[in-house]
């Protein structure tokens, strides 16, 4: 396709269409509304359904319902809406329903500043719902990445039968950049897995031999039960600890075994580096600029841009920071991803650069940290 000037929110919606999304349910909220607006226009063109629900709780419920019916489905919101969706995100994790939740982050807590950027939902993406479960969360740092990572989000959701959260931020969502989108027919799509077994043998939560048993859509002759209660392999509620443990082991195992393809990142100049900068989202843009400035001044700086935030790329960060004295973690919050980096590399190595006032982190603030001035 020819180059276009487009917002991150628009690119996200186009990525969803390209990935095969045919159902969107959402509720208006700044700065994610444009995703819904594009989906409202685009989905009926491809025989898909768009619906504006009465709130974010209903939106999350509706996309799970549609996914149970076999549709690739998505919702888009911002921090306050993500908070409301949390119970049903937990349901999708428990019932292993593939779906994509876009969170265009804005400054919180509460109503905060709706049009100001932030990265304050990083921890909410992993720990927002109650109970233990793995999650996949991806963070784009450009308009093109908004498209690409939305496609990746759908593919991971289908392949691993899990909700996937796309953690954009206000700058990425509203920024316009020139992008060249691929021909949608060439976009790699993962489709819902099929089963070879007849309905009477089908177990929607079978623990062996595969980690991700196929989820057959309702209405195709495989009548079974889905619940948010802990369940056995057939999906029926269970109170047996051994059955709960089998489920727990498998849902963590399925993500762990997929790490080599789930963990997306760009690493540059790590081998010779003394200082490492770990960044994501729009902050990675400032960080990259700061790294280049520092290199021009003769400093050996490595740059690790995380595109996958959850599961946290422990081994990637551990390896990158092996011979490093200082790890700079800039982020538009009071230090959320820094907690994970500190957990892996040790607290003394980490220099946090934080802003949670609606302002972008400027390259010179990161540069000062690289040079040990803060």
């Amino acid at each position, binding site marked *: 396709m020819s180059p276009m000037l487009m917002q991150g929110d628009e690119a996200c919606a186009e990525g969803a269409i390209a990935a095969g999304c*045919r*159902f969107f*349910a959402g509720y208006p909220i700044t700065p994610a509304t444009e995703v819904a607006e594009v989906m409202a*226009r685009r989905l*009926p*063109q491809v*025989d898909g*359904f768009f*619906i504006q*629900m*009465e*709130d974010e*709780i*209903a*939106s999350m*419920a*509706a*996309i*799970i*319902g*549609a*996914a*149970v*019916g*076999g*549709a690739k*489905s998505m919702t888009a919101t911002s921090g306050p809406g993500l908070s409301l969706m949390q*119970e*049903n995100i937990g*349901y999708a994790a428990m019932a292993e329903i593939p779906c994509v939740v876009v969170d265009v982050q804005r400054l919180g807590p509460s109503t905060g500043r709706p049009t100001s950027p932030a990265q304050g939902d990083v921890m909410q993406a992993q720990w927002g719902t109650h109970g233990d479960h793995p999650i996949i969360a991806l963070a784009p740092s450009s308009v093109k990445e908004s498209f690409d990572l939305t496609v990746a989000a759908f593919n991971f959701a289908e392949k691993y039968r899990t909700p996937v959260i796309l953690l954009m931020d206000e700058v990425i969502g509203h920024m316009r950049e020139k992008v060249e989108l691929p021909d949608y027919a060439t976009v790699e799509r993962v489709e819902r897995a099929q089963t070879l077994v007849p309905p009477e043998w089908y177990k929607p939560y079978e623990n062996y031999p595969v980690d991700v048993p196929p989820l057959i*859509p*309702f*209405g*195709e*002759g495989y*009548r*079974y*039960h*889905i*619940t*948010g*209660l802990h369940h056995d392999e*057939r999906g*029926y*509620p269970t109170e047996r600890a051994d059955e709960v443990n089998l489920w727990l082991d498998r849902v963590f195992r399925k993500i762990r075994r997929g790490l080599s393809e789930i963990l997306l990142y760009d690493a540059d100049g790590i081998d010779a580096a003394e200082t490492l900068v770990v960044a994501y989202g729009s902050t990675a843009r400032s960080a990259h600029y700061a790294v280049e400035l520092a290199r021009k001044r003769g400093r050996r700086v490595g740059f690790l841009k995380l595109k996958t935030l959850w599961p946290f790329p422990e081994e990637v960060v551990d390896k990158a920071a092996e011979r490093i004295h200082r790890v700079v973690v800039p982020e538009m919050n009071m230090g959320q991803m820094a907690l994970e980096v500190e957990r892996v590399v040790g607290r003394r190595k980490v220099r946090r650069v934080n802003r949670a006032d609606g302002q972008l982190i400027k390259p010179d603030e990161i540069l000062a940290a690289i040079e040990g001035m803060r």
Partner: protein
Amino acid sequence: MSTIHSESRIHERYLRHSKKFPNVWCAGCGIGIVLGAIIRAVDSLDLDKNDIAMISGIGCTGRMPVYVDFNTLHTTHGRALAFATGLKLARPGMKVLVVMGDGDALAIGGNHFIHAARRNIELTAIVVNNATYGMTGGQYSPTTPQGAHAATAPYGHIEPPFHISELAVAAGATFVARSTVYHVTELQKFIAHAIQKKGFSVVEAISYCHTTIGRMNRWGKAPDMMRRLKENSITVKQAEGKPEDELVGKIVRGVLTDRERPGYIDLYRQIIERAKAEAEAA
């Protein structure tokens, strides 16, 4: 209404034998009666089980789907209609039955209830109204009568109740009917009609909870409460023209509305045609 299969044949055909019985409900509970009415209604319509989904929220009624051999989805508290909306749009050919209790449908799920009715999305909602939260032990619900005692109203309940069916009519449902677990053949007839109706249909099944709120108010055992449903209810026709004070405490049974409005999916199909035509013209 005659059923196609005999009673034992119906059990065999519609209940899950891979699911361990007995069920979670207390002996004497009305929810099983509603479940029986639903499967006999389905049977009378001779529908393919593969094309039926039963969706529930949380609570005693929320446990209903696990026992029946349909496509069954037990969701979060209050959200069954929102899950059902997504499923129905992804699978417009399916008959989607949504079973909820009064707290599930009207308190935590009240917003979804009125909006599903307003939207006229093609779903069948069956609300089992036992006027309390049975599973958690008899707290007051949006339909608990004023003055009753409940686990969270030890000095008596001061809030007036919702009237589920009237609310559904006002919000835009195309078919709304109310009956009780005593009037089971009538209930079954209403459910069958609701399933066939295009648009959002609601059947309110008045039940009781003798083990929690019934006990707290000395309303008697299950048979006593069942008898009260019989003696305290009148038909819509009998209620016509009666002054309001004569209807206090009475259950008015019957069809409250049966009207035609365009359904959501039919209207959306027109949107798809328009969007495609405009995209092609561009």
